[in-house]
């Protein structure tokens, strides 16, 4: 491993963009253009539109790779490139440019978004080929990519907010893509509204930054963070955490993600697993200068991460719907990342590391699930799967690569990144470390359960199911993602030097752990394997009943998403609608009644006036004349 600089991040000097870097705007502009053409072009684009969608994102991916090569050629201290387009919002000391910043952190996100994005676009060519609105689908996907790029390339928090909400809009549109289904439309609205609660946090954080630093640009805010009081930084940190909880489906704003699985599966892979839901992790990592100086805020981040790791894992263990089980897993894995960014400079780098590997292997798992559904008449119930490894060989093998990656078996990608987080957690506290190991064991359990129920055991297919392998346009992205799931961890760690790459932006420190490193590795692996064995014994060795057994109270709670909806309904939704009803009554009876009464008293009975409809123009003229007389009289009086 490379020698480490033991420090928190120092602010990098931003150099103006030249050469290929002046294409930052194009990077975003291409998918934006694609979205515009596809959404405005109407039905006539149905034929070639999907290919255009692939082309724009693919070109962006190529540009991104060229940028990476160029960026690697630069010395590590001058890898922050800035490009300002024009003055965007300005008034009274508030000055925000439409400006971008490409640095080591943005770069890895850009690569993840465009490359995984391209693969998922290609996969969708097959998956959505029969949908009559496929141009819209690709338009929305392009819109999403553009917005996500704005999010990670903005050089200030206000522009980040535009990307933040842009991905939320794309998510809303895509969750509700099959909006003739009431459940899809409801899920879309729910996702948006819950995210709005997070947006309150982001809005207020931005306002507090401006009031404190007089600017919302990254370089200004982070450069002056050391001068602000800890109380202010803690407040900013907690508000950013609220925002992150919304977008990344962390407790207590997690309830939307499971419903979001109503969207087509490629959407679940791209938006609700690989990229958008990790935006909260990006936000916190990006704001490391604030969290490093706000201990309580960082602690809150750890707690939220820990709670969500276990919530997600519990839900993932109980769901029979393959997509929802994966969604629970996503919550849990993002919980790992959130936990890691909460650890501070010992964890930031590894959070991003895990984010990248997770982005690849979870995308692969979701697309694999989509491939399974494709062959099973869109059935998502794993109790109706079984023994599919024979029917869909490529899907099975690629899914297994993702499986081994997520549960963290060396040398698969997830092993390196999750192990890094477990290790960092031990550096912080043995208790947190132990908790991450337990959760890793649960991951081993629920993922084995999923694999066993889907690919092993006896076939429990519906009568009309004829499982078959998906077309090449779908399996090739699966294969590429499987290769990534296998090697990406090694590649990033040893060839890409992810630690030294990100260290200038995020900082990196190491601390002693109570247990030796090797012991942690062995214990973690043992716990994971125990979890996997339990899963195997319960779901592959025993027959899986088609009807779900009643289960323990915990299973039943987890099937109900741990009562997240019930809590929201009881505390927020129902009281809101009740208040709305009361105010409606109040407004029509009390306020209006009072005013009408007053009007009747003052103006001479509005009720009676209603009877004199025909005469009213005249009476209006009369009142005008009366008014004029009063004016003239008054003026004359004043003159006297």
């Amino acid at each position, binding site marked *: 491993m490379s020698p480490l600089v033991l420090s928190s991040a120092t602010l990098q000097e931003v150099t103006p963009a030249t050469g290929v870097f002046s294409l930052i705007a194009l990077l975003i502009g291409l998918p934006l253009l694609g979205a515009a053409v596809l959404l405005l072009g109407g039905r006539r684009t149905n034929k070639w539109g999907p290919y255009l969608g692939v082309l724009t994102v693919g070109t962006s991916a190529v540009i991104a790779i060229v940028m990476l090569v160029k960026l690697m050629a630069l010395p590590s201290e001058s890898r922050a490139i800035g490009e300002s387009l024009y003055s965007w919002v300005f*008034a009274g000391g508030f000055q925000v440019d439409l400006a971008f910043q490409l640095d080591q952190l943005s770069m890895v996100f850009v690569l993840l978004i465009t490359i995984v994005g391209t693969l998922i676009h290609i996969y969708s060519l097959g998956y959505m080929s029969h949908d009559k609105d496929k141009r819209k689908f690709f338009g929305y996907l392009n819109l999403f990519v553009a917005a996500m790029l704005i999010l990670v390339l903005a050089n200030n928090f206000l522009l980040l907010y535009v990307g933040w909400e842009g991905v939320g809009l794309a998510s809303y549109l895509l969750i509700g893509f099959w909006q003739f289904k009431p459940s899809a439309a409801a899920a879309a609205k729910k996702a948006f509204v819950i995210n709005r609660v997070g947006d309150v946090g982001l809005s207020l954080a931005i306002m507090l930054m401006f*009031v404190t630093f007089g600017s919302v640009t990254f370089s200004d805010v982070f450069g002056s963070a050391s001068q602000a009081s800890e109380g202010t930084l803690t407040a900013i940190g907690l508000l950013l955490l609220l925002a992150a909880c919304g977008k990344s489906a962390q407790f207590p704003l997690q309830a939307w993600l499971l419903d979001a699985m109503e969207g087509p599966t490629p959407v679940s892979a791209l938006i609700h697993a690989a990229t958008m839901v990790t935006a909260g992790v990006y936000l916190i990592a990006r704001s490391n200068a604030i969290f490093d100086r706000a201990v309580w805020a960082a602690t809150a981040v750890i707690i939220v991460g820990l709670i969500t790791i276990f919530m997600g894992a519990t839900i993932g263990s109980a769901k029979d719907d393959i997509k929802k089980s994966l969604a629970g897993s996503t919550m849990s894995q993002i919980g790992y990342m959130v936990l890691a960014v909460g650890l501070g400079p010992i964890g930031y780098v590894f959070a991003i590391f895990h984010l990248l590997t997770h982005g690849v292997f979870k995308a692969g798992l979701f697309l694999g699930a989509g491939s399974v559904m494709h062959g099973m008449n869109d059935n998502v119930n794993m109790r109706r799967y079984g023994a599919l490894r024979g029917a869909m060989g490529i899907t099975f093998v690629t899914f297994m690569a993702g499986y081994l990656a997520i549960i963290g078996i060396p040398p698969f990608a997830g092993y390196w990144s999750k192990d890094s987080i477990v290790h960092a957690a031990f550096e912080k506290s043995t208790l947190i470390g132990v908790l991450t190991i337990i959760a890793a064991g649960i991951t081993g359990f629920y993922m084995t359960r999923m694999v066993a129920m889907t690919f092993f055991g006896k076939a429990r297919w519906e009568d009309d199911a004829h499982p078959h392998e998906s077309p090449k346009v779908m399996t090739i992205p699966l294969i590429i993602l499987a290769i990534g799931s296998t090697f990406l961890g090694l590649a990033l760690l040893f060839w890409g030097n992810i630690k030294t790459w990100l260290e200038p932006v995020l900082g990196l420190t190491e601390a002693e752990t109570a247990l030796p490193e090797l012991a942690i590795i062995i214990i973690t692996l043992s716990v994971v394997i125990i979890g996997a064995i339990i899963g195997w014994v319960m779901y592959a060795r025993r027959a899986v009943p088609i009807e779900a057994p009643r289960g323990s109270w915990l299973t039943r709670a987890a099937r109900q998403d741990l009562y997240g909806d019930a809590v929201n309904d009881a505390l927020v939704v129902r009281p*809101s609608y009740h208040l*709305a009803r009361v105010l409606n009554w109040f407004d029509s009876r009390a306020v209006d009644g009072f005013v009408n009464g007053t009007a009747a008293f003052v103006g001479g009975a509005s009720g009676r*006036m209603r009877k004199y409809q025909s005469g009213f123009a005249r009476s*209006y003229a009369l009142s005008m004349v009366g008014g004029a007389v009063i004016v003239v009289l008054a003026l004359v009086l004043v003159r006297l």
Partner: protein
Amino acid sequence: MSSFPWLTLLGVVPLVGSLVVVFLPKAKALLAKQVALAFAIVTLVLTVAMALQFQADSTAQFQFVEQQSWIPAFGISYAVGVDGIGLVLVALATTLVPIVILAGWKDADNERGSVKGYFALILVLETLMIGVFAATDVFLFYVFFEAMLIPVYFMIGRYGGPQRSYAAVKFLLYSLVGGLFMLASLIGLYVVSAQITGHGTFDYASLVGLDIDPFAQKLLFLGFFFAFAVKAPLWPFHTWLPDAAAQSKPGTAVLLIGVLDKVGTFGMLRYCLPIFPDASSFYAPIVIGMALIGIFYGAYVALGQNDMKRLFAYSSMSHFGFIALGIFVFTSIGQSGSVVYMVAHGLSTAALFLTAGFLMQRNKNSALISDYSGVNKVAPVLAGFFLIASLSSLALPGLVSFVGEFMVLLGSFQRYMWVGAIATFGIVITAAYVLRVYQKSMTGPLADGLSGMKDLGGREITALVPIAALTIVLGFFPAPILNVINPAVDRVMTTIGASDPAPTVPSASVEGNGQ
């Protein structure tokens, strides 16, 4: 500065247009529409030509100034001119009028009133709207302010829905009562100016900076403010609005809520603050309280509404709360934000009412949300515009309404942290009620009886495209608005003696700018 009478010309063109329309034979309804549209477009072109000559960095408060003595005995003159705020609101009015005419092409067919009458009224209203934003004589302003009621009264009363008479009368009574209070204050102001300077005046520039006794200020402020608060409308003076909106033609509602009501918030910024600075800061906490209540009250009532038009009216009331809040926190960001919000709200109101209007025409004019479901299936273009309008209404970042709303919230937060923080929670409820309408009406299974619904036609799309385009373009590039309104807002801030709170630990680049 050119002495070309731009503003008078702007006002006269639609007036001439209305006369031409009125004198057309009754049978030539189509010609009347075409003539009205032509005049409205000429007015818009003239506005653009005028705006291009506006000098954002001018030291003069008003540009395109004209002054003719009218009633010299009382110091009343025909005096017009615009600052940046007046300019963008005039532009808003002249942009929306041709759109409303085009969108309302068939609205007056088969009504009690004649077709040509409806379009003539719209043009008259346009003249008065230009006048009210351009007047620099307070009495002239009052005349326009009151005269505006007449065309609107007839537009609601003759061309409205089943309850039109009730709604029109209610609108008129409210406005008249408000206007009477303003009239009283106006006279009082004249008296005070006479006492201070020896000769009474209604000239705006002379009234600003008069050293009016604080007690008198407090009294006179109330008269103006009451009229503006009814017009805008702020809680609790809002109850005329839902009725008026529900009974109006969509086009009438757009002009009423999108433009006319802005006169209220415009008046607060133009008249209440600069002429009565002491009273304004005295009443500011009360107004801020009313604004805050209005934001949430309007939003919650909207959440429980089943009538789309009433829902949009309550939503507007909530938005007017934001606008008033931005004005009365006395920060340049807040006030600039309010002006941007006025423009944005004009656009989003237009988009919402017109799209909803197109929808209702296709289903027996029903405004009930429960009568609709799954419209997206049969009319995807309509649903698309409805969604854009909804997103504009909930101030999605990237749209111009976000620029306005965020600036208002930021300006409020900068002055009173908790006020800004509380108001920010409004964005959640807004999203909830806006998306609820979209979900219930546009998504899900197709409702019975809607299967034959046609999607938007060319005329309807043509009317909506400019609104959607402006909403997006100005969201990413609001500079054309900000450039002209910022100097005007700075002048208001200087006049009332307010200054922006400084950042607690300014970053190096901020200090370097000397801000």
